[in-house]
């Protein structure tokens, strides 16, 4: 790909010198049931642990039963951790860092791992970001938003979209908080921000889709728009009148129609203040089966909101649009049309006549043959680049991390941030997340017409700083996190056994023979003289092996 003169000449030299060694490496597929379980856990949690693998073994590797068990667990919440810290007096002012640490705790250590992993995936679709001060300076607001996603991870999509719409943090992020109806005297009209993004990103997407996620096109092959700019303007009129929850019923301003005075409320659902709601008739989306494509005049604000949410949720686009992205977050970047169709069909009807059953959708994603069948491990076009934050949590959980400190101790400090690894939960640069669902990285993937969204944050900066963050985690600590490599050190006198141990936890048995050989060579080359002061040969070998596998393509890519 890099057509520089230098390597070309070198290659010609090598051609004469006697050929190049090196064959194309492929993943191993002869894997044990435990390794298969590890792979499932990599898709369904923030990383496998030996305990979780044991649990699955005891369940007879029944993944559906495992999911049921996860669904039954109570949700672990982040916002109460932050509130408790303030109420105990340990924290006077809540900062963004406190919220991040609370969310780290529930994501990395919460026992409801499937729910947390789905909530994290949802946070990359229904994006708010602490990149802007309205979110980072909002007490527990950002954690409250994350908790709302977690609560809805096993509910219905309809409830999820409704709660997202009414959450005060989303109101501030996409500016429908205190969005006023049109004022002809002042020459103002409603803000269109939320109306646009709720369609483009949170429900139907830009283009009309078939049930399998492929684009509908006109006669010339051009995709068909799913909505028009006029429809955005109509929806903008729906999203008027929201303000802070309060019990103050006295309006302000001329005719007392403007929003009542109230303190900022960053956690309770936004209140609908009808005097600032546009009560005219509105044209929403029209499609086969639309229950209310037109809203009559005179409805209350919340009636309009209810109808608008239904109008979006019931659009045929929403299933395939959302499901394809959920597959991308959990399993693979380029699901087959069939895979998308199967999951979208479950979204449309869970088998009991219900639309948007999140648990049914999650099961459809994780239990589908395209996620479970090991034949796909060998498909060169299958899989995804693990996103850097999940690579980090995977290492933490696999290697029995500990945290120091007592006050919101899940603190990465400056070692793991969006500037060192390219992303951080709920800190995306914009509502478009860290990467776009259709990003094609230049090179072999774009040549094959494939997408790899996570590559959008792999460049010559993060290509080095992310391995460096991994290096620091393995060799010292990251903020308050330290790994425990004693189990690996204890088997390090046998290089093969050491690699097998790590293979189970990191690469789920798929570690290629090529990488395995290289790592074993490296381990066996470590001599006592090379051991750093204060360390042991066993630990040194263990760290080297973990590092090499952790930065290898074998681990970086989930297949």
């Amino acid at each position, binding site marked *: *790909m*890099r*057509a520089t*003169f*230098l*390597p070309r000449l*070198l*290659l010609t030299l*090598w*051609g004469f010198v*006697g050929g*190049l060694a*090196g*064959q194309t490496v*492929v*993943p191993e597929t002869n894997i044990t049931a435990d390794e298969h379980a590890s792979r499932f856990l990599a898709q369904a949690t923030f990383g496998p642990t030996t305990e979780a693998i044991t649990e699955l073994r005891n369940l007879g590797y029944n993944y559906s039963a495992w999911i049921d068990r996860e669904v039954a667990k109570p949700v672990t919440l982040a916002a109460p951790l932050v509130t408790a810290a303030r109420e105990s007096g340990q924290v006077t002012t809540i900062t963004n860092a406190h919220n991040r640490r609370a969310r780290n705790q529930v994501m990395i250590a919460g026992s409801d791992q499937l729910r947390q992993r789905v909530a994290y995936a949802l946070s990359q679709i229904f994006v708010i970001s602490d*990149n*802007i001060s309205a979110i980072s300076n909002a007490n527990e607001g950002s954690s409250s938003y994350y908790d709302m996603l977690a609560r809805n991870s096993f509910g219905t999509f309809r409830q999820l979209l409704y709660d997202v719409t009414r959450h005060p943090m989303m109101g501030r992020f*996409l500016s429908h908080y205190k969005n*006023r109806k049109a004022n002809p005297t*002042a*020459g*103002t009209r409603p*803000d*269109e*921000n939320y109306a*646009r993004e709720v369609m483009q990103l949170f429900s139907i997407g830009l283009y009309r889709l078939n049930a399998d996620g492929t*684009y509908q*096109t006109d006669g010339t092959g051009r995709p068909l728009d799913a909505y028009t*700019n006029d429809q955005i303007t109509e929806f903008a009129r729906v999203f008027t009148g929201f303000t802070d929850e309060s019990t103050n019923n006295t309006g302000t301003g001329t005719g007392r129609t403007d929003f009542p005075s109230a303190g900022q409320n960053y956690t309770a659902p936004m209140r609908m203040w009808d005097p600032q709601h546009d009560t005219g008739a509105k044209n929403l989306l029209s499609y086969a089966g639309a229950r209310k494509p037109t809203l009559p005049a005179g409805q209350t604000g919340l009636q309009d909101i209810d109808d608008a949410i239904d109008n979006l949720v019931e659009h045929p686009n929403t299933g395939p649009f959302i499901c394809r992205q959920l597959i991308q977050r959990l399993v693979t970047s380029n699901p087959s*049309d069939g895979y998308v169709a199967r999951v979208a069909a479950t979204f449309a009807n869970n088998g009991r006549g219900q639309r948007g059953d999140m648990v049914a959708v999650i099961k459809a994603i994780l239990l589908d043959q395209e996620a479970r069948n090991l034949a796909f491990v060998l498909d060169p076009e299958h*899989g995804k*680049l693990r996103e850097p934050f999940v690579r980090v949590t995977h290492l933490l959980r696999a290697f029995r991390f500990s945290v120091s400190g007592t006050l919101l101790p899940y603190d990465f400090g400056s070692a793991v941030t969006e500037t060192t690894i390219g992303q951080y939960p709920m800190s995306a640069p*914009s509502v*478009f997340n860290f990467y776009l669902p259709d990003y094609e990285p*230049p*090179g*072999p993937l*774009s*040549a*094959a017409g*494939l997408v790899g969204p996570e*590559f959008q944050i792999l*460049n*010559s*900066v*993060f290509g*080095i*700083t992310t*391995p*460096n963050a991994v290096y620091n985690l393995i060799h010292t600590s990251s903020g308050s996190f330290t790994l425990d490599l004693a189990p690996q050190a204890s088997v390090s006198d046998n290089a093969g056994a050491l690699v097998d141990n790590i293979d189970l936890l990191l690469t789920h048995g798929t570690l290629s023979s090529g990488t395995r050989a290289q*790592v074993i*060579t490296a381990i066996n080359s470590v001599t006592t003289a*090379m051991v750093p002061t204060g360390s042991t040969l066993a630990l*040194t070998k263990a760290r*080297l092996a973990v590092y090499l596998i952790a*930065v290898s*393509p074998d681990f*970086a*890519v989930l297949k």
Partner: protein
Amino acid sequence: MSTTPPEPPISRRQFIGQASCGAISATSLFSTLLTLRLANSLAAQSTTGGEGDYKALVCLFLAGGNDSFNMLVPTTSGEYEAYASVRGNLALARDTVLQITPGNLGGRTLGVHPSMTEVRDLFGQGRLAFVSNVGSLVRPLTLADYRAGRSLPLSLYSHADQIKQWQTCIPDQRTAVGWGGRAADIIKSLNGPSLVSMNISLSGQNVFLTGRDAFTYSVSSGGATALTGYSPTAVNSLTAQRTKGVDSVMDQSYRNLFEQTYAESTRDAVDSYYEFSTALNGITLTTPVPTGNSLASSLAMIARVIAARSRFGARRQIFFVQLGGWDHHDEVLNNQLTMLRTVSQAIGMFSSALTEVGVADRVTLFTASDFGRTLSSNGNGSDHAWGGNHLVMGGAVNGGKVYGDAAAGHYPDFRNLAAIDTGQGRLIPGVSVDEYARDLLAWFGVSNSNMDYVLPAFSSRFGGRPSLGLLSASTTTPTTPTTPTTPTTPTTPTTPGSTSPSAGSGGGGGGGAPSTYFLGALGTLALLRLRQKRLAKKKPKAGEAADGPT
């Protein structure tokens, strides 16, 4: 500035390749290759005329859609009142804007946003110009066309699409190859061999710098970072074993395309670090860099890279830096106060730094953004719109002027927007991004015959319109490199299968021109089969070509 490049640190991997090729001593190859590289660089310098012909473009992308009709405001009597009327509570007070009298508006006056004192000063010095009402256009458009939906850019008013269209100059097809990348495809052969691309981003991956062959080198404002615990010169130590391990793992060919892409990216990142950091070693600026201004830090890094250009063997470079947060649906006035201050301060510093480095007339900075914003207010902000104002800064700029639709007086007359206002003050652009880009590219050295490759839509759609006249014509046009021989099938010429330069399946370096990748016959067949299968199943994207309209 030295005329011979410093000794480049080359990784042992490049010489040793796979561990099994131990028959060749690393030392002898090191010196052989060093000699080759030096000879090559010197040859490149001698045939291409040396430093005198250096040029660089710097794209400053304001992501989110800058409300740029408050960056440049009409102040002529009558025009200002019309502006204030349509902008309502978003209008800037006339006595707060910084007055300028452009040399080509026949006496009409404008005002620069109050925060942008450096921009106002540079305009007065003739080093800065504005381009007004620029936006993505498929072709020149009337209001009737707009209402009928004729020839509209795809997904007008959508951030992701408009950003892409600004960066590709192809508004009616979905493609991810940028015009900065295509310019580099054409022109990079002017540069000496380097592991660091001529296209350098301070803001990570972007479409603008992505070319068919040209790729992007990303660096942060603090410079390039070394890979911890890795050293190509380490011997007989833990670091040496770790280095060998990393090299051997990254140098493998992976059949899984994701693994292969990751391996290549990591390999490139590690290798280019050495060249970059050596080149920047000892390059410092005396121009003060404002603190707490991330854009200034990025532009200062760009200035340092430019100062080190001969160490990269670079005669042409293109830089990209993005500043986000412009999507001001809310609080546009307060936000622009601080954000336009950031921009102006950074541009002022950059101009001084370029003068210090001695390249003031060789570097042109230009702004770009998804779109302008609605002239009308939504309460305290504005919404997505279309045409917007931009600025161009550099010694080669014909400054002190405003360039726009000449027939409409270069800057829209707010008393008479009816013909271009699609509603809410969303203005049909008077200048297309193509025309804006073309002036910049022509100055940069893209010849007329190559312009069709870089701006494929230009000649058929805007070719009849006169050049804006933004920049002084080049007095020396470099030896025009030929259009790259590219395949006619809409795929990039890269083929997956093996990394460069070492691994490959079987010999392949023999007959014919050496290719970047070596593929055995079986591997090639397998890949062709896989590609055919995938392309057959590929989702239809409207008229999509991998590299532009056919």
